[in-house]
């Protein structure tokens, strides 16, 4: 009889950890709220920096967990502590007793309509990064014009913003904006593409090359200034106001499409789960690891482990690495090491 490990969340972190646990000889059980595995990545078009289709990654991970138990459209109703483990009650009526739980509940995309001044949901041609990925994946979106002359990307929407309640940097948006800008340029080579940024944080492998490419090959225009407000001209075009902080003067530009780079905020269900299991919440709203230097996948409770963005904003490679390390940590824990 293989030992159960409950994995809360079927995104790439949960999937990768499940695959590793399977090969280590455990019985991972993935509990996923949505009707599909792969989480946010499954909705994405291509991944930076090598532009591989996101579906490819999700598919690969899916193959590795073919033998795992997966409950889709299922929620964790209740978790209670047993003398030497946990009892997890699911919304489909199934009860699981296990010694280890992996929390991989991920993040929630910031609700861009909360930044009222950007007019998401008010103006016809304001979309989010997620909307654009869906459109790139082929779903119809009337908000994306047939032939946009110019378009803008607003970095840091709901990130590094005390007013939105999130002071953290979402890490991936800068690169995502550059990636999306390039993808749009590929489709509309004649259009003007502007990126409005506060700071460009391109820390990962080959991200800087990505940036250089966007400048040199694609002519994406970078404006150092946070967009403060969006209005509509008499003709119905979007008018974006920012300060070009490098020239020290206000700029305005008329656009046909504005893409808001919604950041990562803590998963709204995470705090509910943290409450049930007695997990600590960090000051940024994400779940708190035992420490932020060494014990990132470990929690303050015995047998509870973390992987991925439930503890903070992360990129795809970081998430995948963390999932593997969490699988190993669980293995060591269950072996009594």
């Amino acid at each position: 009889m293989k030992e159960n490990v409950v994995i809360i969340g079927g995104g790439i972190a949960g999937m990768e950890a499940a695959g590793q646990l399977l090969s280590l000889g455990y019985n991972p059980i993935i509990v996923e709220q949505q009707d599909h595995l792969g989480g946010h990545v499954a909705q994405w078009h291509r991944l930076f920096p090598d532009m591989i289709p996101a579906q490819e990654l999700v598919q690969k991970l899916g193959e590795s967990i073919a033998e795992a138990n997966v409950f889709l459209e299922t929620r964790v109703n209740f978790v209670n502590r047993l003398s030497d483990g946990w009892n997890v009650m699911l919304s489909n009526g199934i009860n699981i007793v296990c010694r280890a739980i992996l929390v991989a509940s991920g993040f929630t995309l910031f609700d861009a309509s909360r930044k009222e001044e950007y007019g998401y949901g008010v103006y016809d041609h304001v979309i989010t990064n997620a909307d654009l990925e869906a459109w790139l994946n082929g779903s119809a979106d009337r908000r994306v014009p047939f032939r946009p002359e110019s378009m803008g990307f607003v970095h840091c929407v709901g990130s590094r913003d005390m007013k939105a309640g999130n002071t953290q940097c979402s890490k991936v948006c800068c690169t995502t904006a550059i990636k999306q800008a390039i993808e749009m340029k590929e489709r509309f080579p004649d259009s003007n593409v502007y990126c409005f940024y506060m700071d460009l944080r391109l820390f990962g492998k080959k991200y800087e090359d990505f940036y250089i490419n966007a400048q040199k090959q694609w002519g994406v225009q970078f404006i150092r200034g946070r967009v403060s407000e969006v209005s509509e001209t008499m003709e119905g075009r979007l008018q974006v106001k920012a300060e070009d902080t490098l020239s020290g003067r206000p700029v305005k530009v008329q656009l046909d499409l504005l893409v808001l780079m919604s950041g990562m905020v803590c998963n709204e269900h995470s705090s509910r789960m943290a409450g049930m299991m007695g997990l600590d919440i960090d000051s940024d709203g994400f779940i708190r690891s035992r420490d932020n230097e060494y014990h990132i996948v470990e929690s303050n409770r015995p047998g509870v482990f973390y992987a991925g963005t439930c503890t903070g904003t992360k990129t795809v490679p970081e998430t995948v690495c963390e999932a593997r390390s969490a699988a190993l940590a669980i293995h060591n824990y269950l072996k009594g090491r």
Partner: protein
Amino acid sequence: MIDRIASGFNPFVIPFLAGMAFVLGYCLISMIRIVLQLSHADRKKFLISLVTPGVIWRNCRDIFCDCLLHVKLWKRNRLLGYMHSSIALGWFILIVLGHIEVLLFVPGRINLFYYPIFFNFFVAENESTVQGKVLFFLMDFFLLVVLSGIFLAMLKRLRSRLFGMRRTTRHSLTNQVGLYALWAIFPLRLLAESFTAHISGGSFLTVPANWVFRQFLGNDLNMLPTWWAYSIALCVFMVVLPFSRYMHIPAEMMLIPMRNAGIRITSARRGLARLEVLSCPNCGICIDACPMSADRANLKDCTVYLTRQIRRGNEKRIDEISDKCLLCGKCQELCQVGVEGPKLRVAQRASRKYPISPDFSDIDVKGSGISAEKHEVAYYSGCMTRLTPSISRSVESLLRKAGVDYTWIDRDGGLCCGRPMLIAGRTEEAREMAARNMELIISSGAGTLLVSCPICYRMFTEEYTLPGIRVVHYAEFFDELIRQKRLTVEKSDVCYVYHDPCELGRGCGMYDGPRRLLSHAAFLAEADRTRGESVCCGGSLGSISLDFEHRKSITMSSLENLYSSRADAIATACPLCRSTLARYSDRPVRDIAEVIDNQTKES
């Protein structure tokens, strides 16, 4: 009744007389000083009003209703009302009855100031007493009324919630001395009159008490010390009065005529401002009223503490309190005396000197957004609405649907209306901005100025002179369009609770208009505290020093109040309230214009 003491004098009246002379002298001098502090025009206005028959009548009526009956307190809480009117009115009647007694029985002594107060000491019963039975009864009755009030006052210190107050003022030492002296006066009077009741007579209270005392006290030795104690208690109260909150008794009697004369606060400390500070009874109703008291750190920043610090001359705290206030106006709305807390604070802010003064002379507003052709309606969205484009978009959409000939005069930016500058205390600069804006608005040639921001609306109606231009808030304007059938609104089944923006509700008195408009499109629920008592959202520009993170608790308490209505969503009519509430709300927050626009068909 006949005189018991031939000289009509006993040394125990001296403390009373000394206290009385002091308090009358003090009050007279301070009142004269306040009148002298008024500007020449205000002084003239005030003195003329004092001899104008209509105003005299109003003054008498207001003084009777407010100072003696405490009508406003009765409306707020009956127990609180009874407590105050029993003491004030009861005491007043006791004094009047005392004078009647003297006039009736020993008319020759009416020129002795203390005689009506200590009547029972100086007289003895004789065969004519029977005529006085009714008077004696009334004296005892009103003494009982006052005593019941004193009892309630003691109870209030222990259980303020019974009186509808969660928090009460922490009193200073002088206030406490005054309080205990006031509490002591009436039980001592009962005791004193009881000890003399077998000589000077009494009624249902004093006669039985006298009988009880005589059962175990064989002589009259207690009589004189008790009368001394009574006189000393009166003396202490009167000596402390000018330095304690009880100064509000004389001050309010002068504040009412001054307000009826139409005088306004112009300086932070002098004239009317001084009088208002003295009129504050330190009752502490403003503590619960203040939206900032959601955070314990702000408990000492409401108006009652401002007036106290002004009286103490603690400049540092005066500045702190003046800068922190949101200027929501709720303390003034609920104040029984009518202390204008917000105006006192703005006057204090205005008293500061700045080496850098704003200068807008070289700002060119001409040509910005004003189109050459004239339109019926000029829409002025204001600064804040630019950050909530959903509002201006809905207003425009409704204007289009109704076929109104309009222009949006600050579409491409414009000048601020000046109110934020005004309430920061920079009056002259605000006037300059207003002057330039008036030019702009008049040059648009429109007959109607449509406003969607209550801050601008209040500024336009209070400080601007726009001849021939009707300034209208959209709440009224769209309601008219609906009545004229130029807009067809369909009622949805969503239930909204309306949050009164401070500037529109308490500021401009517009409570019904927005509700009427909203009810065309949705069902309405009311929060626990609503209209004049609604809770500021915490986003107000009125506060200079409250930081972003310190406003959250205020917003949360405002939301808690709105949640009490159990409505599905929150509607308001102010861009600042809308974004502040939406930041933390667990349910949708909409501007009324958005709600109406969603429910209005394209024509």
